[in-house]
């Protein structure tokens, strides 16, 4: 017991300042929300598409050139192929509430993450219980979701927990592209959660299949967390904003976005 106390004193208090007191500590090469220059030509786009590991992450439609964060693995190769025209910003607040909001357009206005207006989601601000379903992915999303439970991130202080049973859950936290052999297990797990319930799609695979074929989702996700895998800071910020909570990151949004774009 004494040894444990001494070790605890030596290790110190190690819960990070994010998200209550400071923004996250991101690596220098962190690739966050992409930005497409208005001057992106079809030639540029073709060059970027040629090196993109994912089909249809980049494209062109009536609205102009786009990059779909729901498919993107954030590898950065398109930015290498089109220097100056495609770049990855340090914006880590990537969680959105609709599939369309994951599509980044060329030359669009500065980004502000959406605020939660759904009262049912806001009602969960004191206690938000998640049941994780791993369905055919590579387990990186699962590992970086698990990390939020460690004392470095301490998701529990916000009343957010991964629970053992869907019966106890407010939301199903889905990772993986939903392989054929997990299709039925996912449906049954989702059905076992009591109403009202939400589906959260975390990672490119869960959102769009990513590199793989996409299975059928049991419902339309209410929260999309893009990434391959999403950074824990992205996930935690998204979960808090989804339940209508303000964090340092959202209250200091303007200050933060100015420091991010520099």
């Amino acid at each position, binding site marked *: 017991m004494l*040894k444990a106390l001494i070790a605890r004193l030596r290790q110190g208090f190690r819960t990070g300042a994010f998200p209550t007191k400071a923004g996250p500590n991101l690596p*220098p090469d962190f690739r966050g929300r992409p930005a497409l220059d208005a001057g992106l030509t079809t030639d540029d786009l073709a060059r970027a598409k040629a090196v993109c590991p994912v089909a249809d992450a980049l494209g062109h439609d009536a609205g102009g050139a786009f990059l779909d964060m729901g498919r993107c693995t954030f590898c950065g190769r398109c930015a290498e192929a089109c220097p100056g025209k495609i770049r990855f910003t340090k914006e880590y607040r990537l969680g959105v509430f609709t599939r369309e909001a994951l599509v980044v357009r060329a030359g669009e206005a500065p980004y502000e993450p959406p605020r939660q207006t759904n009262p049912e989601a806001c009602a969960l601000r004191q206690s938000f219980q998640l049941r*994780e379903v791993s369905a055919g992915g590579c*387990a990186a999303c699962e590992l970086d979701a698990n990390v939020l*439970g*460690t004392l470095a991130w301490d998701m529990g202080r916000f009343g957010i927990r991964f629970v053992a049973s869907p019966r106890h859950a407010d939301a199903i936290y889905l990772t993986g592209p939903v392989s054929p052999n997990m299709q039925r297990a996912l449906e049954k797990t989702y059905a076992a959660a009591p109403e009202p319930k939400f589906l959260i799609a975390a990672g490119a695979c869960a959102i769009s299949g990513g590199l793989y074929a996409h299975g059928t989702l049991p419902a339309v996700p209410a929260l999309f967390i893009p990434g391959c*895998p999403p950074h824990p800071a992205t996930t935690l910020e998204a979960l808090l904003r989804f339940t209508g909570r303000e964090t340092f990151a959202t209250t200091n949004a303007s200050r933060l976005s100015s420091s991010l774009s520099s």
Partner: protein
Amino acid sequence: MIETHAFESAEQAQAFLQTLGGYAEPPAVAPLKGEAAHEVAVGPVHAGVIEPGHFRFQCVGENVYNLQIFLGYQHRGVEDAIVQADGNLPRQIALAETCAGDTSIAAATAFAEIIEARDGLRVSARDHALRRLLLELERIANHVGDLGALAGDVAFLPTASFCGRIRGDYLNLTALVCGNRFGRNAVVPGGLRVALTDETRTKILAGLRAAKRDLDAALKLMFESPSVCDRLDGTGVVPKDVAAQLGLVGVARRASDELNGDVLARALIRRKEIDEAHEVVFGLLEEESLWAKDNGQRTMDSGEGPHTANASRDEPRSENSGWAGAASAAPFTAVVATVAAWRGPLVHAAVFDTHGAMRRYKIVDPSAHNWQGLAWALRGEQISNFPICNKSFNLSYCGTDR
């Protein structure tokens, strides 16, 4: 490690790939009979944040008579997808990396080595060192996480808490090099897309020293706690001869060969491998001559040409053959790459035709060899010992299912 084998027909090459092994589901065991016999079925959706698999415990009274492990829930066709993506290196690497997320660096290295053998690319000493550095960081991070989880499973919370955080410290060191905590998007055929600047190297050295100090204290606490050691000692034993017969590899094999093959042995081997990995990493980082000439050169698999920059070809690619390096005139050539991943040897193998086009890809995750070790470890144990037995192996479902 790279091996090449020449074959006259596709069937021969296919037969060779099968000799590399893989997971084979054990034959179904008849239900037990008798008053004390019962079965407990678990999964595919488990209580924790873990991957899907179905376990069936055939019990007699309190004890497990036999554990049947049913996998395949994670199957998504990684190997076929890699073959179909032939010609699109970024996609192939991404697929290899996502075979098992916790083994991304080892997988990318194995894939890169295969393409390097096909194209005769030479990798610079610096890039070899940088790959090794990332690989050892991957090993340390995973072992730390597993030891912490093991502590958590026996309710020894100090080490569980410390290691959960320290594992993150090591992942963040990996992210310092390449921007991704799992080392994704870094290794490419011919080298790496990232360089190691002196500034980053200094930061990593400082970070490693701090993390290792915290880690040593956390592990000392656990391994010097009589209650923890008593709980792990003698639990889930796989004797040496059984380990050999089952063909176990990696940590599990070492634990049975060098120690007595119980949960404590597998934990101690991990601790040993953590120390060994640190020696390698410090040795690499402090080897000034290795990095002195580093001017931030990166290898690109995008932009102009498939791979340029500091990768140099042994000889120019000939006109009518896809083979430049380990050249082969045979109709089919199998290239087998083995990488010392953290769970054990990770084997990637590709069959190319005479034009260098990929015809077949096979991945043998070290986990594939070890599931039967886990099943054996549980024989005669109580079901309540399953979590610590499972954690001491920590096998990859997605790596096995592919």
